[in-house]
């Protein structure tokens, strides 16, 4: 070791499932974090598109005609509760309690599935009320953003179902607590994105009508440019 710089260390013998890493963070977990960073920009761009076109639709139905904040508040609560059950699932996996893990995973799937049920109901209702994908700017941006979020949730449901089946079929050690942990990261991220979507598309944007000169956004912009010029 003392005589040269790149003297060779004895080959490491990491345990079979936990490779040794420079940072100590598992490869797959780090991959999930990097993916979530990337996904932030994905949803960020979709949300930006929605915000740019907010209140710009020149034909109805407008958000104020069809957005139902109370019913989506219920579905939002359901989705947030699924984050709680997911945390309990991760804790169960860490303590190696396979039976509890399966119970919490199934509960999370039921809650997430309920959220998707609400979304299907909402999309269908909007269609019946005359808001189709090609109707106006609101419909195109709304369905694209919430649709991709719903696709993320659906993917998460399949993932959690796979973990639950794995846990049921292999009581000894599969899925590992790391497997559950990574799925949990993804699940919480999708929930956080929904909080942003619910705030912007429902609580703030849910009362938008046709474009108008006195629009708050227009007024705000005029105020800023007035300050500068």
């Amino acid at each position: 070791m003392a005589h040269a710089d790149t003297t060779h260390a004895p080959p490491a013998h990491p345990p079979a499932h936990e490779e040794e890493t420079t940072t100590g963070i598992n490869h797959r977990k780090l991959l999930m974090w990097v993916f979530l960073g990337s996904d932030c920009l994905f949803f960020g761009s979709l949300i930006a598109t929605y915000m740019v076109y907010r209140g710009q639709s020149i034909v109805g139905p407008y958000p104020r005609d069809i957005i139902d904040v109370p019913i989506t508040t219920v579905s939002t609560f359901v989705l947030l509760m699924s984050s709680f059950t997911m945390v309990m699932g991760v804790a169960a996996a860490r303590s190696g309690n396979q039976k509890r893990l399966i119970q919490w995973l199934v509960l999370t799937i039921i809650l997430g599935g309920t959220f998707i049920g609400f979304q299907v109901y909402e999309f269908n209702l909007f269609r019946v009320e005359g808001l189709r994908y090609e109707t106006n700017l609101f419909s195109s941006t709304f369905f694209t953003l919430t649709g991709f979020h719903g696709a993320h949730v659906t993917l998460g449901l399949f993932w959690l179902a796979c973990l639950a089946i794995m846990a049921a079929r292999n009581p000894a050690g599969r899925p590992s607590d790391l497997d559950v942990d990574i799925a949990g990261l993804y699940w919480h991220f999708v929930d956080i994105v929904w909080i942003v979507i619910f705030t912007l598309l429902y609580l703030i944007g849910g009362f938008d009508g046709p474009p108008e000169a006195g629009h708050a956004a227009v007024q705000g912009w005029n105020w800023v440019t007035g300050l500068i010029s």
Partner: protein
Amino acid sequence: MVTITGVIPRPSTYTGLWSWLTTVDHKRIGALYGISAFFFFIVGGIEAGIMRLQLITSDNSLVSADWFNAMFTMHGTTMIFMVIMPFGATFFNFLIPLMIGARDVAFPRLNAFSYWTFLFGALLMHAGFLIGQVPDAGWFSYANLTAAPFSVGKGLDFWALSLQVLGVASLAAGFNFVVTIINMRAPGMSLMRMPVFVWMTLVTSILLVLAFPIITVALIELTADRQFGANFFNTAAGGDPILWQHLFWLFGHPEVYILILPAMGVVSEIIPTFSRKPLFGYPVIVFSGIVIAIMSWAVWSHHMFTVGLGPIANSVFTITTMLIAVPTGVKIFNWIGTMWKGSIDLRTPMLMAIGFVSLFIVGGLSGVSHAVSPSDFQQQDTYYIVAHIHYVLFGGAIFGIFAGIYYWYPKITGKMYNELLGKIHFWLMFIGMNLTFFPMHYAGLNGMPRRIYTYAEGFGWEGMNLLATIGYFVIVISLLIFIHNFFRSIKKGEEAGHDPWDAPTLEWSISSPPPVYNFAEVPVVRGQDAYWITKREAAARGETVPAEPHVDPTTIHLPSPSYWPLITSFGVVWIAGGLLIDVGWDYIRFPISFVGGIITILGVIGWSLEPPAEEHHEAAGGHH
């Protein structure tokens, strides 16, 4: 429980077609990337040649206006997404695990998936040629020229969907290299001991994973408009075409640095080696790279000065664009400082690297000239812009790539290229490049717009265009010499040895070409330029350092090959390709595309249920 269909027997992994189709070896994947990128380099070069021949004189009628549109669109798209980016991936793949002392990348199968998805996406893009549906709206395809009423046919659908597939490939590769570099460094290789090429790969990969989702969304919106009747860029419904420009350039400017930072990394390896001096100001070069990456997010609207965003926006982006020239200039001074009082050895890689630095300065200066927004009003959409982009991407990125190809040729092939032919290649390409693109500055300032398929006589543009076309053929000759040199040296070149350049980085401490397992024993790093330190200390004792001796590869645990990346990539491209099917009944494209989705899902399931290599290996009775 699970059928072990994904694992093919170990002895068959080193030879034959299937070994290449199922390989997860980063060196083989790097080679595949390199071959594919060079193939598309020729394709994009032919497209450039058609344009140059059309413009050789005024009122020429070699090709139609429509065909010319297709040529400049495909030339730009090909060179950026199918040549420079995969050439970057070639070096990332081949070198990163070797430079950080790792056995492979963090996710070898994901790496194979990246390559196959890239290849299929690139082929899908070019499949449009077979049915006469070629993208023709320019490489940045501005809305609302791309709307269904204005771009009839499937050309733009080929463009949008293929680019989406290429984006999936780039994202997967970006994730992989971020994790690999952060997590798989050899003991002792702290971040500030990493070779600059590794640093620039890390920065590029982070830019990739953050920038590509934006173009993904822009392409989703374009596809939704064209395929499903959405309104994102539909002005009749109140949509704003400028949104496309913002999304495209918010992706597009980080993309510019995705193209150039790998070349800067390559040059930062070559200049110290051939100056016999450590890199001057290593931390400053690293931080400049990071600052460039951060600032690349704040300059996108300099592509949009003439859009009419107003004086405030134009002033802000003028200032940020001028500021980003500072870290770039710092790097150039560092490279010059490295050469200063060095013992300079003008081998071909060094010539190419110096060519990179000098031509990139020219491109950088013209860049600063249109960072000034009033000046840019004169230059927008003229050949001056074409000259600028080719000085930074041909003079910059391509010279950097060739510098890297010559520098690592002995490592990759085990043979030495012909130095004389290499030098002839460099000088012809350097002269040809300047002959082609320097006159374009004058043509542009004399008012010649870009993207015109012909021009009337009397504007005084003929001379400039003739020079440019002659220059094109000088470049072609130089590349023929390169191709000859490349293949002849593989067959007849002399053995290069493991360390022909007395280089500072770890990949030179193992034999050439590297054994399949890379390092038999994980190296320990105690400083920057790790292999130099080893060799200097040995020399002080009067010893030389031989290449690491070979060991029996079956004693070393390696990731097993897999069919699943190939199958999953095939599914992904089928999803995109299915939407392009047009056989009378329009809606048939949705079920066909859906089949691709099922293949993808089956591929992912097979992938995740594939037993880990450890189990297979232990079952075979081996141990490491």
